[in-house]
């Protein structure tokens, strides 16, 4: 597919790697915020090809992973009700709630459907006017415009039996929270490319100045990641901290103004809890008053939620970059993609799932990758 293969070219990857090795003289810790970037780094073995002194810390940019347990339990409760068709992206189905997941609820007879796009859920609502259709609206700024447009269309078309269970999260407040944490080791960030495709880069200069931290907008293919890392290390080595855009083919500085306008029409900023991390002020979106009729949380009163988190799962530490997945005692034994204890082992963007899938099973045996940087398959967030 065009513009995927080209940005996985092994010969050009060699050039970029060589540059990174040339400029690196000291230890550096760089966080890739986005889980899609984590998967790409691990899949292509890029972290193992970097100089040993450059550590990639995996960030919390996995929307499935950070959706609060209370919201998952609420989804399970709503999905279980008669007359409800509960629609979701596929990743959410195996995310453990307090004792069960959407897949299990589906197997007991609930009408849970996986959709590709939120517009598919709206079409299901139009086709089933006697049923209540709920869409699980999760995701970062990349996904929020799709959900915003769907609610906007539901209102415009008068589809009253459609509602959205909203658990949207935002990247810049998470970066601030990471930098404010006492145990923070992060010295620079690769910002999530497709979040910036929507929002532009205007939110980052303030973070760069406030925390004196380089932020480099980065894509997802091997060459994109290597170029983002090269520019980041170059800034660190020369004592600079700037906003830089290493993904210009998909990120104009202004982002997508039409999408941002729709986000402001439908959503307002709110405080949001992140699973494994806790409350981050101003880090989420909720529906505005004008769209409150489409809020599943208001439409379906759910009380008596008693959340029970796994005591063994250390996904919170993984999401904060404090440990690597294979440092958890349950990793790969009691916790696998088939029997996940936490959402980071479920999602296609979860760090634990990436380590498991690409066989990074032992923290002490860092084996070289089976093959060098390979041609990219698909890009994330």
């Amino acid at each position, binding site marked *: 597919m065009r513009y995927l293969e080209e940005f996985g070219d092994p010969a050009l990857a*060699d050039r*970029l790697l060589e540059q990174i090795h040339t400029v690196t003289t000291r230890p550096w810790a760089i966080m890739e915020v986005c889980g899609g970037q984590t998967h790409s780094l691990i899949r292509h073995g890029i972290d193992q090809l970097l100089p040993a002194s450059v550590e990639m810390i995996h960030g919390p940019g996995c*929307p499935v992973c950070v959706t609060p347990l209370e919201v998952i339990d609420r989804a399970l409760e709503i999905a279980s009700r008669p007359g409800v068709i509960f629609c979701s992206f596929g990743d959410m189905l195996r995310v453990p709630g307090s004792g069960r997941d959407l897949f299990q609820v589906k197997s007991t007879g609930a009408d849970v459907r996986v959709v590709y796009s939120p517009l598919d859920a709206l079409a299901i609502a139009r086709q089933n006017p006697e049923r209540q259709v709920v869409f699980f609206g999760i995701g970062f700024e990349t996904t929020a415009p799709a959900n915003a447009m769907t609610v906007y269309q539901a209102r415009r078309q008068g589809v009253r039996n459609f509602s959205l269970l909203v658990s949207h999260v935002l990247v810049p407040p998470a970066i601030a929270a990471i930098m404010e944490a006492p145990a923070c080791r992060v010295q620079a960030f690769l910002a999530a490319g497709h979040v910036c*495709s929507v929002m532009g880069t205007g939110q980052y200069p303030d973070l760069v100045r406030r925390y004196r931290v380089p932020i480099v907008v980065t894509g997802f293919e091997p060459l994109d990641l290597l170029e983002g890392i090269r520019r980041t290390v170059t800034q660190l080595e020369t004592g600079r901290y700037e906003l830089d855009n290493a993904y210009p083919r998909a990120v104009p500085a202004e982002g997508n103004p039409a999408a941002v306008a729709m986000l402001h029409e439908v959503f307002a900023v709110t405080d949001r809890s992140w699973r494994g991390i806790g409350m981050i002020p101003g880090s989420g979106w909720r529906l505005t008053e004008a769209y409150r009729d489409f809020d599943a949380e208001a439409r379906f009163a759910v009380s008596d939620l008693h959340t029970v988190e796994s005591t063994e799962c250390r996904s919170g530490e993984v999401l904060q970059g404090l440990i690597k997945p294979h440092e958890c005692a349950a990793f790969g034994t009691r916790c696998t993609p088939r029997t996940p204890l936490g959402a980071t082992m479920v999602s296609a963007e979860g760090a634990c799932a990436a380590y498991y899938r690409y066989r990074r099973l032992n923290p002490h045996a860092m084996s070289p990758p089976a093959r060098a940087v390979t041609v990219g398959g698909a890009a994330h967030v």
Partner: protein
Amino acid sequence: MCLAVPGRVVALGERDGTSMAEVDFGGVRKEVCLQYIPDAAVGEYVIVHVGFAIQRLDEQSARESLAAFARMGLLAEELAGEGPRTGPSDPIEEAIR
């Protein structure tokens, strides 16, 4: 979940008052909402996420990036009197060691 993939617009259309496009992803075609890139033309590349075009792919910028990567290190090698390295496995093996 947050997969976003470049695809080429092959046809423009409309459904329920919403601007839509048929987009080709290396042979697989999907209907995509074009409300956020309303002026995308047939033949252009857009970046698609959960059925929505969220950005236009700037092909010139993509070509410039690839050309810049190709030039990278060449000047230093010429100054050092070496030709460009062509064996793709050498620096990678060094890095692994």
